[in-house]
């Protein structure tokens, strides 16, 4: 049985996402707010600025392991983040393309 994209990943502030549904389908953005386990606010700092984020169902997002600590930290400390930092986070992500994190591993027995 296949896995629906995004069903294993909990949404995190500052996480990079790619939209799968809607007119912005295929576009990259950053999670700038979490409403509940299934709904988040996203912004890209350009067409969708921080002050007018888009509400998205997490099932309609591909959530990458890449998290911008700068975006997350700014929002956690001040409740806001500049659009420049959002754009910078997306640019840094594009430079790495996809996460290279090895993840933790557990060997049983």
């Amino acid at each position, binding site marked *: *049985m*296949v*896995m*629906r*994209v995004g*069903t*294993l*990943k909990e949404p995190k502030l500052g996480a990079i996402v790619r939209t*799968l549904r809607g007119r912005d389908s295929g576009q990259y953005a950053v999670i700038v707010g979490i409403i509940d386990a299934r709904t988040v606010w996203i912004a890209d700092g350009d067409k969708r600025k921080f002050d007018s984020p888009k509400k998205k169902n997490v099932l309609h997002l*591909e959530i990458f392991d890449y998290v911008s600590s700068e975006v997350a930290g700014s929002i956690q400390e001040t409740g806001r983040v500049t659009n420049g930092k959002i754009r910078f986070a997306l640019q840094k992500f594009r430079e790495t*393309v*996809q*996460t*290279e*994190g*090895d*993840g*933790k*591993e*557990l*060997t*049983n*027995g």
Partner: protein
Amino acid sequence: MLICKSRSELAAMRQAGRIVAETHRILAREIRPGITTAELDRIADRYIRSRQAMPSFKGYNGFPASICTSVNEQLVHGIPSKDTVLKEGDIISIDIGAKFEGYHGDSAWTYAVGKISSDAERLLRVTEQSLYAGLAEARPGVRLYTISHAIQKVVESAGFSVVQDYYGHGIGTELHEEPQIPNYGMPNRGPRLRAGMTLAVEPMVASGEHHVRTLSDGWTVVTTDGSLCAHFEHTIAVTDDGFEILTTCE
């Protein structure tokens, strides 16, 4: 967290995989015009239980059957029904999961019902080839999306589309574990494979556009343009120097 299985865990997964493969072999002999998908489900359910295993899908997030049966433009998660009667020229993707001593095996195959069109034959052949092209990359040290890239290259070179909304996955005591395994991506990216990892690699390919939607039953996924689609899947274990297919009768 990416889990590496011990030798005893792999033994249980090998048996779960064998039961899945045996079930596929039995159903392959039953597929013919006139049979219903409900009957295929009944045959599979009975066989899996006769082997002291449980069907992994039944009740999983509320799924109502033991296998998924997806016909023609249905990609995945088709629900077996007495009203779905196979006919000559159809293609049917059957996804089977079995849980043995706490460990899952998961494998899907797309079958021809009688004689199918040459376009459909090519779709099935390319999708199967893409699975094995991906698996050929599996060995310790290789980054996961190298598998994804190999699948994508085969599919798109043939002029078909990789479905992007559904992925393969890690597997073990849970049917779906980390990592998610897309069927597209850049090579040399993603987590490194380690011996003992158990993965379900499953390319899903559309003959038309890659966009899909879910029907009102909440499960069946179809291509939005109505084009034919195919699905092939094996559960594998990464070994010290390559990989082992677990969903096999051999």
